[in-house]
């Protein structure tokens, strides 16, 4: 049983560019959340998607946007990239309220 899969694994972008990261949740999971993890820090919550709608959002600017598709997969889009956006971006999914989140291995984004 595949867990949470994310693509690409690594990505290098130039400041000012736009990037799209992709996530396929674990089978049977319908809720997807995205987190940003800077080096040496704990993950920071970006937003959560359920039934193709953004249900909760963390303290991230509007440059960060997302989408959930009918098959529960999700995308994270970041516009006008800044050097400070360099981080590990994690996708997490769960099967329902009250269950723990399963994380993917992440996409490591480097902005130069």
């Amino acid at each position, binding site marked *: 049983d595949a867990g*949470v899969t994310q693509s690409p694994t690594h990505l290098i972008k130039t400041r000012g560019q736009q990037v799209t990261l992709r996530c396929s949740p674990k089978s049977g999971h319908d809720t997807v*959340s995205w*987190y940003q993890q800077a080096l*040496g*820090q*704990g*993950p*920071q*919550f970006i937003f*959560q998607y*359920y039934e193709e709608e953004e*249900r*909760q959002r*963390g303290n991230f600017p509007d440059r960060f946007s997302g989408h959930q598709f009918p098959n529960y997969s999700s995308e994270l889009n970041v516009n006008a990239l800044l050097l400070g956006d360099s981080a590990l971006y*994690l996708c*997490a999914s769960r099967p329902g*309220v*009250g*269950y*723990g*989140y*399963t*994380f*993917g*291995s*992440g996409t*490591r984004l480097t902005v130069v």
Partner: protein
Amino acid sequence: QKEVEQDPGPLSVPEGAIVSLNCTYSNSAFQYFMWYRQYSRKGPELLMYTYSSGNKEDGRFTAQVDKSSKYISLFIRDSQPSDSATYLCAMSPFGFGNEKLTFGTGTRLTIIP
């Protein structure tokens, strides 16, 4: 003040020792408590998940929650070199649409053979 405080370590212990990892929190709304293990360049792996005060055991791992003191712990018995990783505590409120996980900064643990 951060909502969740976790000693970043690093922590080094000999193989076979009991490891104690701890977090404190300030938000009384937190109802769910988790411990994740993260190996270098990997995503966090859920180890323990609980929503009540008291102890929960799973193999060599025991999670302890004290809501009155706003303090959670993870104990690892008979520690193995493969336990060397960063351990993250995480917690969230209860309720649909209010499930943001707030993490500690992580404790880097090394088990010395």
